[in-house]
């Protein structure tokens, strides 16, 4: 099972409600994944700011954490069990080093100029409410409701998985060659936080893109290198991409209007979107990469 949603604003008209739509979409797909939920919302602040989504240990005082890190001109904002640390982009490396040294028990859930990433164990509607997803605005976002099959129900095992700046992956399915692929990626220096199969796919894509491939080419490589069944939705700083395995084990529906492109594991997740009655609704073909990108911003 599991459910995936994605929403990409083609015009600014729905950016203010992006979080509210995503929250409703996730809530609908709770029946496909009641164990945990997560989402990434992309809202470019400014090119000069790097955002770290953190999960500090319970009871952590965010301001004390901020002081401990000691990054100039930085700020922190708590959202549910997570907190977003904003630092000047030139202090990105320094912030990463400070987090590793000064806050080793704080998990860096995601990092990027645009992306904030939240995930937690629990019913999707509760998770969305806990993080205040309904109030978030953004240019695009993806989310996941998990019914665990390959690894334990933990916050770390919830999707999305982020393994590179502004990159994250949600997955419906299960991979059968993830242990071998994990060993190959470990051999060339990539680290893993969990024994989860989806994390392997996320690291794989990050590694290929670090090798210089575009997201589209990296996904084409996944068709060759990943064994198992999957529907992936990949978020990047500028958009998202969709890929189904060549035999289309897992369902997927897409819809497009003048205002948005939406993805859902089932049409039910899209049924509440504005203008859906006149949207073009179709099933993405197996083994084909679909991608939507926002144009370059000034």
């Amino acid at each position, binding site marked *: 099972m599991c459910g995936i949603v994605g929403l990409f604003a083609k015009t600014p008209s729905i950016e203010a409600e992006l979080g509210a739509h995503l929250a409703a979409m996730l809530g609908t797909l709770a029946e496909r994944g009641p164990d945990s939920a997560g989402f990434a919302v992309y809202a470019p602040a400014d090119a000069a700011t790097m955002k770290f989504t953190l999960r500090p240990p319970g009871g952590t005082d965010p301001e004390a954490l901020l002081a401990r890190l000691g990054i100039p001109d930085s700020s922190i904002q708590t959202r549910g069990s997570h907190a977003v640390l904003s630092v000047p982009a030139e202090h990105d490396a320094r912030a990463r080093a400070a987090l590793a040294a000064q806050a080793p028990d704080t998990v860096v859930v995601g990092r990027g100029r645009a992306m904030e990433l939240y995930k937690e164990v629990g019913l999707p509607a509760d998770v969305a409410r806990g993080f205040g997803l309904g109030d978030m605005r953004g240019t695009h976002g993806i989310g996941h409701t998990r019914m665990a099959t390959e690894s334990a129900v933990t916050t770390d095992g919830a999707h999305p998985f982020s393994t590179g700046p502004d990159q994250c992956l949600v997955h419906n399915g299960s991979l059968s060659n993830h242990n071998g692929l994990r060993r190959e990626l470990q051999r060339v220096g990539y680290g893993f936080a969990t024994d989860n199969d989806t994390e392997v796919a996320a690291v794989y894509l990050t590694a290929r893109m670090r090798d210089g491939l575009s997201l589209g080419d990296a996904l084409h490589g996944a068709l060759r290198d990943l064994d198992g069944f999957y529907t992936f939705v990949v978020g990047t700083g500028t958009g998202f991409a969709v890929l189904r395995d060549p035999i289309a084990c897992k369902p997927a529906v897409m819809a497009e209007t003048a205002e948005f492109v939406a993805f859902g594991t089932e*049409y*039910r997740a*899209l049924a509440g979107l504005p203008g859906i*009655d006149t949207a073009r*609704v*179709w*099933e993405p073909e*197996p083994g084909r990469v679909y991608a939507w990108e926002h144009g370059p911003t000034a």
Partner: protein
Amino acid sequence: MTPEPQTVDLADTSVRDLNAALHALSPDTNMTAWRVLNPGGRHALAAGLLAPVTVEIMGHAGYYCAGMNQMATVVVHGNAGTGVAENMMSGRVEVRGDASQSAGASAHGGLLLIGGNAGARCGISLKGADIVVKGSVGHMSAFMAQAGTLVVLGDAGDSFGDSIYEAHLYVRGHVANLGTDCVEKPMRDANRAELFAKLAAAGLAGEVDVGAFRRYGSSRLLYQFHVDHAAAY
């Protein structure tokens, strides 16, 4: 005179209540016209019907719409999800848009007419129903199809008719490739007559040229076990 349809709005009625009302109809009911508003992609809409009524679903349907249908006519004014008309026994199911995978799976009788495209595995394990797809069908369609017909006006995806038994397959467009034990067969007069009858039942008589289709079926090497063919298993 067309009766005023019974209208059920799923914005304020559950699917369970809708289906219970439809299941309660006797074969001689005079409430023969039903209209379902705001389907919202919900699953199992109008599944398990047992009376000659017409149910129009005014939007997209989810999984297993009109599954196990007997006698009823179900029209989806939109797309249908996985398994539309699966295990249909009789009656007629029309999807005006696209159908997702496993459309008409294991259907024993009746007609499934899909106005757009059908996804993977259309007519998988078909057991006697007729399926007419105006668009194309996805990979592994008519997999292990035992009886009935699948008529495709567009193209067919990979492994068409894999491990087929005795279903009759007619495709007007391009077949990506044939599955194991599925072969092209000559169009004989009896086949042209059968194809015309199916097209006529789908309301396409005269619109589509029977001569533009090619026929596919089983070479009967797989399911008639012969030790000389053991290597093909």
